[in-house]
């Protein structure tokens, strides 16, 4: 879709005066059946995931996988030298399976380390970040999103998107400064 001036349309956005207004608007857009839309706020709004119809974040599964790989790495790094590469007898203590409790602290630390890396990289990758530029930044009011602005944006590539219907819905939900955001 293009504007009369020839710009590719990215989306239509509206600003809301408060988190509560944005929350109510999100429920209306969800119920209208839109799929490619999002709300933007300076902080996470409690209950917004349900208002948008989003489920649980499965980032936790990635972190579980990270933790398991950390544990296995520690097992490999500790048992490899102890049982094959470099059996070390200190104070005459055993180095066979009876030594396992002394390996627990490092297993724990490696599990935590790998889980934390998994959480950090998963949050970036699942959010498609780092992303230096995004069409939404073409909207000049949008810079207030990291201060005190609350925005709802319906993307043009949503199959239900028509300029009239989107504008009507945003107006009905109490949106202000309803704007067509350009792609470039």
């Amino acid at each position: 879709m293009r504007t009369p001036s020839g710009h590719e349309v990215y989306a239509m956005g509206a600003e809301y005066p408060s988190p509560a207004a944005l929350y109510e608007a999100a429920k209306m857009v969800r119920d209208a059946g839109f799929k490619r839309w999002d709300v933007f706020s300076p902080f996470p709004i409690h209950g917004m995931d349900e208002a948008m119809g989003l489920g649980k974040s499965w980032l936790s599964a990635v972190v579980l996988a990270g933790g398991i790989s950390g544990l296995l790495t520690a097992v490999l790094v500790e048992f490899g030298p102890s049982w094959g590469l470099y059996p070390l007898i200190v104070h005459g203590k055993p180095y066979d399976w009876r030594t396992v409790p002394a390996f627990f602290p490092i297993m724990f630390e490696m599990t935590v380390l790998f889980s934390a890396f998994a959480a950090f990289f998963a949050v970036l990758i699942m959010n498609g970040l780092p992303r230096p530029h995004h069409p939404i930044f073409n909207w000049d009011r949008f810079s207030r999103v990291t201060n005190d602005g609350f925005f709802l944006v319906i993307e043009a590539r949503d199959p239900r998107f028509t300029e009239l219907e989107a504008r009507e819905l945003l107006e009905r939900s109490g949106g202000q400064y309803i704007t067509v955001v350009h792609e470039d």
Partner: protein
Amino acid sequence: MNDWPTVQEEAATTADRPLARPPLVLNRRNFSWITERISGVVEDRAPRWWWVCFTITGTIAMFGLFCLGYQISTGVGTWGNNIPVGWAWDITNFVFWIGIGHAGTLISAILFLLRQKWRTSINRSAEAMTLFAVMCAAIFPGVHVGRVWMAWYLAPVPNNYGIWPNFRSPLMWDVFAVSTYFTVSVLFWYTGLIPDLATLRDRATTKIRKFLFGVFACGWRGSNRNWRHYEMAYLLLAGLSTPLVLSVHSVVSFDFAASILPTWHTTIFPPYFVAGAIFGGFAMVLTLLIPARAIFKLHDIITPQHIDKMAKIILLTGSFVSYAYVMEFFVAWYSGNAYERFAFWNRVLGPYWWYWWTGMLFCNILSPQLFWFRWCRRNILVVYFVCMCVNAGMWFERFIIIVGGLHRDFIPSSWGIFVPTWVDIWTFVGTLGIFTSLFLLFVRFLPMIAMSEVKIVLPEADAHAHSPNGHHPVAAGGMERT
């Protein structure tokens, strides 16, 4: 019929007010005020006092770096350590600094899991403090190995000698615990910073600021689809940091507890060390935040309520520590072990007697007792006095444990005494300079309060705040804003 509350309902609401929670941000500040005030600390010109402080701390840090260079190029002999006192100020300083870091993780992770909303005003600076404290801590065992260029032997790296570290040694556990702790703290801290870096990016007026904050903010745009994953990551990092922080000081205590030395070889050490770490760490958080709050006029965000709550945590953890001190004496008597009994008599009456009387008894046991009184918790000077006592007392405690345990060996012929050299003293003072310099730089270049988190505790951040008649339960601090 109308929707206005009846007289009885009004009276009931008024009667409930003493139970309502006091607001976490005072004077009805709104979202943009928070952004302005906190970003302003970074964006405005550095005040003169900042340059004065930074000149002083930077000079002290230079002394510390000089001493480290001298120690590395000359050898560990420049320190006063000598058998039987093989560990002295170096390991004292290590345990002191790593302990300070623990308060930051407690605030950022454990208080998050416990849904303590007041943590939002202090978590960012406390986490920064954690990182700088762990950096200072890492210096001491790092250079204590003697040949710093061989420190890579600590890591399990395949090498052409075919040598591997001893994974059963508590010292090796410590290497893993501290390096994991530092790495996870950096990840947690940076994850929390991303939305605030985006705020600074959107406010940036110069190209360089826009570029640098833009790069580090990773293109964050506050999308709820992003917040969903972000909140899960934050929760999981908090959940991971919680057992981690408890494990780190437990592992530090294993360095001592796994030995056979009287006063070291005790099972009470892990919880005793963890409580002491949080105790000393909260004192350091207040030591840094009370001046910062006054200088940057953050009284509406870091309120008397916050200081009051931190004082209560100092009192609580101080009580754990006092209990551990008393229990050590009891067990020394109850064990019937002559060496153990001697070591504790020696702690109170031996050559280092005054360390115990001033450091452990006065600073750590007695001074926090002032915090039983609300007046003391609300008086900045009293709070600062107690925090300074605790800062000093916790250093003395570690010195007593380490040197006090070592200087009287099992055989009187090998008894000794420890005297610090000027290198010992200036290396420690130097790390105080490095720590404060890093904190001053942090305050100038990064938002010292988590803006996106403080905004959540404002009542208008609650999406359900505008229900009919206000009967819907409001988030903490919602109804009673004065």
